[in-house]
């Protein structure tokens, strides 16, 4: 997995590319990237899964850990571009009650602006 970050409209966007598997872990995990941005005072974060074809339970753990870290200091974390399969998993396990999932980056940024 490759993680790159950029900022737009005061939102830090994490562009994730490649499969997210525990067997292919990177030196700095997604959660660590998120914590770094939170420590720099950023509060609005977007995880862009548009180029992620596969995610395993380790990846879900990273998403939830990022969500918890962001929420606990009053920030907002949103997800965009997740696959239909993953969305269904989140739906049947009620994770959609806590995770804010948007169709794409544009809608996600608009939802940040709406507040």
């Amino acid at each position, binding site marked *: 997995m490759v993680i790159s970050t950029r900022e737009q409209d005061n939102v830090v966007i994490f562009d994730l590319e490649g499969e997210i*598997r*525990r*067997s292919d*872990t990177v030196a700095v*995990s997604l959660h*660590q990237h998120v914590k770094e941005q939170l420590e720099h005072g950023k509060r609005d974060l977007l995880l862009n899964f548009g180029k992620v074809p*596969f*995610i*395993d*339970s*380790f*990846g*879900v*753990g990273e998403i*939830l*850990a990022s*969500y*918890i870290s*962001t*929420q*606990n*200091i*009053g920030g907002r974390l949103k997800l965009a571009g997740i696959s*239909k*399969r993953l969305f*269904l*998993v*989140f739906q*049947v*396990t*009620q*994770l959609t*009650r*806590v995770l804010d999932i948007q169709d794409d980056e544009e809608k996600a940024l608009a939802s940040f602006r709406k507040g």
Partner: protein
Amino acid sequence: MNDRTRRLINRFAPLRRGEERLAGYLFGHFFFLMAAVYVSKVSKTSLFLGLGLGLTKSSLPLVYFISAVLSGLFAAWNTKRIRSLDRRAYIAWSRLFFAAGMIAFFFLFGTRAAVVPVLYWFWFEIFLLASVTQFWVIVGTVCEPRRAKALVSFFVGGGLLGGIGGAAIVFFLSRHVPARYLILLGLVFYLAAMALIRGAVHASSAPPAETETGPPPDYLDGFRALGRSSYLRLLAALIVVSLAASTMIDFQFNLAVKAGFPEEAGRTAFLAVFAIAVLVVSWILNSFLAHRAIRSLGVRAALFVTPIVLALGSAAVFIVPAAALTAWAVLVKGSDKSLNYTFSQATRELLYLPVAQDIKAKVKMTIDVFVSKAGEALASVLQVVFGIFLAFKADQMSFVTIAIIVAWVFLLIEIGRRYLPAIRENLVPSRPDAERVVREQTQADTAKRLLDLMESRERSSVLYAYNLLDLLKAEKLTPELRQLLSDKSAAVRASGIDTLLDADNEALGPDWDEAADQDGLDVIVREVLALDAYQDVMRRPFEEVAASNAPALEVEQMELAKALGLMPADAPLTENLPRLLKHDSPSVVHYALESAARLRKREALPLIVPHLGRAAVRDRAAETLAAYGDRAVPVLKDWLADFRADPRVRQALPDVLAVIGTSRAAEALVRQLRRRDPEVQNAVVDALFKLRTRCPEIRFRERDIRPEVLALVQDACRAAAAASPAGGKSGEPGTGTSVPGFRQIFLLLGLIYPPEDIGQALQNYSEGTKRAVDYALELLENILPRDLKDAVLPVLEDAPAEEKARSARRILKSLE
């Protein structure tokens, strides 16, 4: 102005270059204005008391009542007019009115008509209100708001000196000129003040606004806001009774002065000296004692100082000899004035803290204009009833005063009971703990299993079958999901399960009939795995698989790791688990950890802990250790204390102990806390607070936690004391969240005081806005015992760097 002079002045006022002239004019204006006020005040009282004694006793209550009503109405009118009229014209006309008024009264007093002192009394109340209001309006007009705020104490100092100066001149002149001539002295001072304000306007660089912006005050709205809040009604009642008590004391004082100083000259001189003494004592109290006393007593206790002192003073009249009545009255009145200018005002302001800002703005004006006058009016009615109808003597009026003060005290007790709940209501609503929300409202574990299922379907039908079995057995599996996984009907396909598992019309699970079958299947599988014959037959193949380093066998190793968790803990094949726990592949380790959580073999613990340092399996390892429960604590405790161990492992361990949540786990964390190991200290504090909120039955001893709080306070104090005033922005308060270790201080306090309150206070403090920080600190002020308060609050409060450095050094010394 040369630098030396500027430095001298800057010791008293934070003047900037270029604003010396303006500030000087405003200082001078307030000086002469207050001189005029005090000259007029002394002459007003002295001239009024020159009426016959009976007249004084019956006319005073009437004068109090009418001046309360008149000044209330005038204040309401003045506040509205000043916003809507052209300001310069308004101020010019009011100057003319008051100057002409002084001249008129000088001549009117010459007629010796009895009504003139009464009229002058009313005139003075309006003069005082209008002049002071106009001064602050002018300051707001010619100064920028931040500069006005910074210089307010400089101007007030000018007013104080002017009051003392004016009263001093009255004292010296009183023996030589009749009191009515002092009115002309007041006029001279007033004209000097007006001349200086012209200079201020010219010296100002800000264009003066012609009218005030913003809507006029709506007093009815203020009354409505009062009606809606029981706390505000209590506050209003408190102000009424405190002013009623003050007016009663003023009544007794005036009668005593009248009796003690029948001659005008002596009376005027005495009143001048009294005014000087009150101003000086108030200044000393305010500058050196009041805030310290409020800090050490706390707001709620400090509120009782004034009524108790006045009650004791009023009661003392029954034991002082008749000859000392005047001295008694002077002491009581002096105490009332001094305490009112210092303690009472400061503490009353703090009582407004729980009130939301927008409501406070509405209500305060209504209270200042109308409610406060109700106190004077109430006192005047009581004076008529007791003083005139029931013919109470001056000393007997103390009964009435004491009764009012008793009501005052009861109100304070009630306000005290409601103060903390009112503060709590205003704290920013507590954010729910996100981890708890995920745990209680979602099925995150099921989501992970579902994804493992999907992944395993691609890799191994055996692994897939194991995972499916596990998933179907999971307690929290919703009936819908269970149905989805085990039904191959068209309805299921239509529901999108195809998407979930790329099913393409296949059945996704076994063709089970009803839910009961998977339990039966599970039993069969376990029984087979437990058979001695199975254990014997499969020993060599499993050992070969477990020992292999060939990547091609990774899937079989995952299958083996999974299967081991279905065997009894004492099954010989489970001896392969340690090898799988040491595997390089995170996928193999993941399943091995899952099985380790089921088998819970003690010898596996040292192999599990290091995986806390591997991001890929950290969560799984933490869950496995938590599954061991209290049995894992001794091993975890040793790892935590070992400073040579992997820091990532050590930093993950406190959270595992918090999840285990037993008293042994809590003790292990506390023991580690006391070691003050910087590598893990933050993680330990976070874990302790988490444990406290998850397991409220676990209590922490104050003697264990308090030293750690004070250690953090000492660190913060050392940082503050070492901070260079030259490097920082002198005079600028440091923001609260820049205090090192503030979060840990709050979390540790949450171990020995209510964690919900402390957690909410932390959230407010972290928010960083002045109001949120004030609420947070006010809550701590009301929860913490005095010694902790004295150490913690100065560290957390916003204050200029120099002030913080001074408090820090004081705290460090006291903690030695």
